[in-house]
């Protein structure tokens, strides 16, 4: 993370020298901020007209119901480790122990809490990893419906974390060409065991299909904080915590802290422009509706001291007559593409034989002379 932030800062400063003139080389490109890159915009990730037909694999083919949309995850490696998670109202401690399994709904990110490590020197350590549970894929469906995805926490991982390193574990199902045996088993890529600069997520996507990603560092998400009360006194703020043990034990399911774009009929969620890929159907991800953040809504500050947009009266008569913001940036933004050509080539391509056009059927029947007939054993008379 530190390296990534440093890179962004250096890029941001590269535009100006001490004299205020540009030091960019001719035709050198400058990326938009990461937040803008993550949302390509209208007509790409929605809203926009539906242009994608139902061309992909369908889970409901032949009348079958949709598959189970949960991934069963089992934490191993630290016997007795206590696992909790973030809920809608706060935190739920001691919801399960290492060695047990839990069905996490897919296409979501969960905030977990690990504590009670049995390893010497880590007894008081508390970790707050995130668990990213990817959606089912045709290549992983068979495995996910029959097997548990193991996530192992080792002493080596804990040592990395206490020494301020971040650990990323990617559990994936290798493609058949990368499997050593015909029996399907998962593989795990760990960021601390890879060469510098190699992203375990990208590496796993090259080797197979990712099912679960666990990321953890040493950040404490339940730090004691304070708040100023109405009377000016400083009061400690406590987190609402539910425990899975004790006289008031309760089980509270985890609440996702983020949702991943869900694939529909095999089409990646970020590519779906209309509901179900069918033109004319309701568009599910409408910007500004439900959990989808608004797109294009101005949030600039106004001279009247309120957040924008400036044309809203905020309960009183509109008095603002003019509010001008001039963008004097020397931007170079190209025109939108009006005709896009994408060449796609698979190697090997589909090679399906011609359908049957002619069937010629012949039968040869044995012909026996009288007295040459043979009788089935079951039909012979016995003496």
């Amino acid at each position: 993370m530190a390296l990534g932030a440093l890179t962004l800062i250096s890029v941001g400063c590269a535009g100006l020298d001490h004299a205020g003139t540009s030091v960019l080389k001719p035709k050198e490109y400058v990326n938009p901020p990461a937040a803008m890159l993550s949302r390509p915009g209208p007509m790409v990730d929605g809203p926009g007209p539906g242009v994608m037909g139902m061309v992909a694999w369908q889970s409901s083919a032949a009348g079958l119901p949709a598959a189970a949309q949960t991934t069963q995850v089992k934490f191993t490696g630290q016997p007795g480790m206590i696992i909790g998670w973030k809920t809608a109202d706060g935190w739920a401690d001691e919801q399960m122990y290492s060695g047990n399994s839990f069905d996490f709904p897919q296409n979501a990110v969960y905030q977990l809490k690990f504590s009670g490590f049995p390893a010497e020197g880590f007894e008081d350590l508390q970790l707050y990893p995130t668990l990213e549970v990817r959606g089912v894929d045709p290549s992983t469906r068979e495995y996910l419906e029959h097997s548990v995805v193991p996530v192992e926490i080792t002493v080596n991982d804990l040592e990395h974390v206490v020494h301020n390193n971040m650990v990323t574990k990617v559990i994936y199902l290798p493609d058949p060409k990368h499997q050593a045996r015909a029996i399907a088993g998962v593989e795990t890529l760990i960021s601390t065991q890879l060469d510098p600069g190699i992203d375990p997520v990208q590496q796993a996507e090259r080797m197979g299909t990712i099912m679960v990603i666990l990321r953890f560092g040493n950040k404490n998400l339940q730090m004691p904080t304070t708040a100023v009360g109405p009377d000016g006194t400083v009061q400690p703020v406590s987190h609402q915590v539910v425990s899975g043990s004790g006289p008031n034990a309760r089980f509270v399911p985890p609440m996702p802290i983020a949702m991943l774009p869900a694939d529909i009929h095999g089409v990646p969620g970020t590519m779906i422009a209309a509901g179900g890929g069918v033109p004319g159907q309701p568009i599910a991800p409408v910007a500004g509706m439900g959990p989808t953040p608004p797109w294009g809504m101005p949030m600039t500050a106004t001279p009247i001291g309120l957040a924008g947009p400036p044309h809203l009266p905020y309960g009183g008569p509109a008095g603002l007559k003019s509010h001008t913001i001039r963008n004097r940036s020397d931007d170079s933004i190209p025109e939108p593409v009006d005709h896009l050509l994408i060449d796609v080539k698979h190697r090997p391509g589909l090679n399906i034989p011609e359908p049957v056009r002619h069937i010629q059927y012949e039968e040869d029947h044995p012909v026996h002379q009288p007295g040459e007939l043979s009788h089935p054993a079951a039909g012979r008379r016995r003496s």
Partner: protein
Amino acid sequence: MVERPLQVLLLILTACGGSAATAQNADYYHPLSQRTPPGHTAAWLQHIRGQPDPWLQPVSIDVAGGARVTVYSHGPEPVASADSSRLFALNPGHTYRLCLTDMNEFPGVELYPTVEVLDRLHPPPGQADRFPVPVPFSRTDIQEALAGNLVTRVIYLEDPETAQELDPLHRELPQEVAPADNVLQRADQLGRPMIIIRLGNRAPGPAGTSSFFYGTGGSVEVRERPSPTAAPDGLSARTTGIR
């Protein structure tokens, strides 16, 4: 009528190498494979056959050392439960979830494999229970599943002529399969695929599981195994395993 013992061969996905070239060089296109989502192959075959087949195909669930077998069909309520020494009759075209418990060689272990019934046998009238399709769970399979691996078996009814060429002495052939092989296609070359078995270590979660986890709604009957002495002349069953 030609007297020929009914032979059922097992194709087991446990090794690599060997037959890869044979399967890959097949000169016809096979759209289905063992990696087709569970339930789809049986549903396709049923769709091709047209009307749902009311036939209940007897299967013999053979667990190493014996076990209690519970059968789920369309929800968390089991539809049948019996010792593995009994026969279970299942609907072709449907997928079932089993629960194996009380395994003598694996005490305390619960496993939830699926059985996808693709096709049926055509035994002599009144003799169906004498020719069950074997659904084996070997000691190695169970150990692999407990280690977190997914074991897939395709069981097929062998083509008598091909079987004579491949196994004239009726030995137990070592069947090797490469990871990228289409095992369903390989089974189709050797005979008629009957059942796909998938065994992993996932169990229903405490927070509930979707109904599809338990199957596609086929019927189940538990039957007694017929006495071996009841076989008419000229009829005998033999099961051969190939690894």
